[in-house]
């Protein structure tokens, strides 16, 4: 008996040691905070697949925060040979392996992880160096003005004629102080107001986009419709942050100058409107991306509309409108939930929302592949037209978009509307001149600080103080916050 026990104890101890040593060596230490309210999935970054021990440039490391670009790449890049079953790598026809590293975006997490990796770029092994990373409008300038992105024209090799068909604003925002173009994008992101046709009919008597637009063409009329909707038992907006972008994109000063945060008067208008809507019950008190907000976009929601930009419509709204999600076998067709029950109009104010740019990292060893990726996905009219037709994403190609706008392109999801036409009208008016490097932190901290105010937990002064506290924690180099009179 004693011997048996000794053997058992030894075996168990060995098993435990092996187990812990496997865990220690196998996984990379990971601190991604789990965000319950984030719809977009986010998987921990992993270094699992060993890169083929071949010559330099055999691994293309792409850093992203969700699978939007991954899907575009896998579906539309002509050089893709096959995609791994767990989607963590993609193999190209010439043998290059594309490794995807996904870090969640919320709370500056993606930026943090990216910064850490970029700072170590020089000492990283050739196959571990970041080759491509994506940046969002909210923080594009930070990377554009740094040395970690390389010139798309001079170093990658894209020519002016290649880039001629892109919307100018998409190039302006990623042009650094010396005039070098540091990134390129496949999408333009003008914003519209997406409304439920059935609810619009009930409230306004019509669901025709032109007539609905007349009823919503400025903020006073918008507020009026909110009142009407409420009288009929509907909500105008779902959450507190829904209309934020329309206000934050039309400010007159950037968020931060030197080390002072300037809260623009237009943003305070958002605060006033949302407080008003919340008290009068015109909104459903949800928070962007949380479960209630997503449910409101589905067939059981009683919300009239959502402010969405191009990517939002196909990437978020479409999925949320289905009654049976595609994961459970539902199809994206009329009859499945609110598919087909949406339409878009311009809304009370023009705006843009986000946008993703592809940047090449300094120290990359895959320049030729990157040039090809950028050329096909952000400059090639045929491919970009296909992307729009199939996914309904609005691509960064003037000629393709105008072609579609003037064609009889119909979107089944939007009940047969040609929304490209509306987007094409708004796209040239986008002004990104007030974008800055601190935008993501400021936007998120501001919204979070004022949620308490809308809920009635704190008063306006306390909410302002909370914002000041939060922003100074996020960005310790900022010293003061200026509020409008």
């Amino acid at each position, binding site marked *: 008996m004693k011997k048996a026990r000794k053997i058992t104890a030894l075996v168990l101890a060995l098993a435990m040691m092996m187990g812990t040593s496997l865990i220690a060596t196998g996984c990379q230490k990971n601190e991604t905070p789990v965000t*319950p309210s984030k719809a977009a999935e986010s998987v921990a970054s992993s270094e699992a697949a060993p890169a083929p021990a071949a010559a330099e440039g055999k691994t293309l490391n792409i850093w992203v925060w969700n699978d939007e670009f991954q899907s575009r790449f896998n579906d539309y890049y002509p050089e893709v040979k096959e995609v791994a079953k767990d989607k963590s790598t993609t193999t190209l026809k010439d043998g290059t392996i594309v490794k995807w590293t996904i870090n969640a975006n919320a*709370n500056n997490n993606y930026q943090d992880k990216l*910064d850490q990796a970029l700072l170590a770029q020089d000492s990283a092994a050739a196959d571990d160096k970041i080759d491509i990373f994506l940046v969002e409008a909210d923080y594009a300038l930070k990377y554009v003005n740094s040395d970690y992105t390389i010139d798309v024209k001079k170093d990658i090799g894209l020519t002016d004629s290649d880039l001629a068909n892109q919307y100018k604003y998409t190039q302006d925002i990623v042009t650094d102080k010396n005039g070098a173009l540091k990134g390129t994008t496949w999408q333009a992101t003008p914003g519209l107001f997406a409304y439920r046709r059935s609810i619009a009919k009930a409230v306004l008597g019509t669901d025709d986009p032109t007539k609905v637009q007349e009823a919503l063409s400025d903020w006073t009329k918008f507020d009026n419709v909110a009142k009407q909707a409420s009288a009929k038992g509907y909500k105008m907006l779902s959450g507190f942050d829904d209309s934020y972008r329309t206000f934050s994109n039309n400010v007159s000063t950037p968020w931060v100058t030197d080390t002072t945060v300037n809260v623009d008067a237009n943003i305070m208008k958002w605060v006033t409107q949302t407080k008003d809507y919340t008290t009068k019950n015109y909104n459903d008190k949800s928070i962007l991306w949380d479960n209630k907000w997503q449910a409101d976009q589905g067939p059981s929601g009683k919300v009239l509309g959502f402010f969405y930009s191009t990517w939002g419509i196909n990437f978020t709204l479409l999925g949320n409108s289905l009654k049976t999600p595609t994961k459970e076998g539902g199809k994206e067709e009329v009859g499945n939930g609110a598919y087909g029950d949406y339409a878009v109009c311009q809304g009370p104010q023009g705006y843009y929302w986000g946008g993703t740019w592809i940047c090449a990292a300094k120290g990359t060893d895959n320049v030729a592949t990157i040039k090809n990726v950028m050329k096909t996905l952000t400059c090639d009219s045929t491919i970009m037209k296909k992307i729009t037709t199939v996914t309904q994403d609005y691509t960064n190609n003037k000629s393709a978009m105008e072609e579609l706008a003037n064609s009889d392109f119909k979107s089944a999801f939007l009940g047969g509307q040609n929304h490209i036409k509306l987007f094409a009208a708004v796209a040239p008016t986008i002004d990104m001149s007030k974008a800055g490097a601190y935008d993501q932190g400021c936007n998120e901290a501001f919204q979070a600080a004022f949620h308490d105010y809308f809920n009635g937990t*704190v008063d306006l002064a306390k909410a302002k103080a909370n914002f000041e506290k939060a922003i100074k924690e996020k960005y*310790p180099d900022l010293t003061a916050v200026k509020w409008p009179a």
Partner: protein
Amino acid sequence: MQSENSPKKKKSIRYDKWGYLFIAPFFIIFIVFSLIPLGSTVYFSFFQYFRQGLKIIGPNFIGLANFVKLFQADLPQYLGNTLILWIVGFIPQIIISLLLAAWFTNERLHLRGQSFFKTVIYMPNLIMASAFAMLFFTLFSDNGPVNGFLQSAGILSEPFSFLSSVIGTRGLISFMNFLMWFGNTTILLMAAIMGVDPGLYEAAEIDGASFNQMFWRITIPLIRPIMAYVMITSLIGGLQMFDVPQILTNGFGTPDRTSTTMIMYLNNHMYSKNFGMAGAVSTVLFLICAVLCFIVYFIMTRDDDSAKKPRKGGAHK
């Protein structure tokens, strides 16, 4: 004869050597992975050292400026939050654990299915705190099952936003901590109670003591060391509470930072890799922890003298 003396000397030195050799690995690892980082944390708390995007600022020596900023930035509030969250969870925990431990070890009661109950009450401790918090987040959200149930049972007409109210959020966090730890505490206290000499209980019964008297006069005083251990470890754990409130409130400690604990505040500084401020918070937390633990320890162990008195005069009462 001489050979007897020299082996003795050799034996004592040899034993010493082996003793030090066996405890050396622990100390080496402790020094490298705990003591040195502790030292460097305290060291950096006197510096301005953070990362702004892709630039690293510092380290610049600024003396006690970090600590001053700390106290101006509501550190007392976060400390208060942490203590409140801990106490509201700990008091039910210790009461119920004592009760359960007393019942489980009472041979008179002879509860059935004890192993089943012991397993079940310990299970919440095995769940990852983050998964647990996510579960509660979904359960108590505005359109979640709890609100749905309350509405259909007619108790509420509109969903009550648990996570937007101070009492709701703090209550949920304390409740979760309670669920996770009361099993562990029960087992510990059971072990402590079973270590008390049953002869004492028999003697008390013969003298006609009631269950209550036996519990308060015999059990509690004799398990004081274990209770002190439970209190201290719970206090340390409570001061370092992080995962549950972080996940439940998505890092914001809403509403109005009433559920922001010290470590959550520390974590906020880690976003900008602010080693200066983070070091200051850590140092302050360490000092507070040490002071509180000493207080608890001395209260718990000093009363051993007074514990002897009831025993002497117990027979008369």
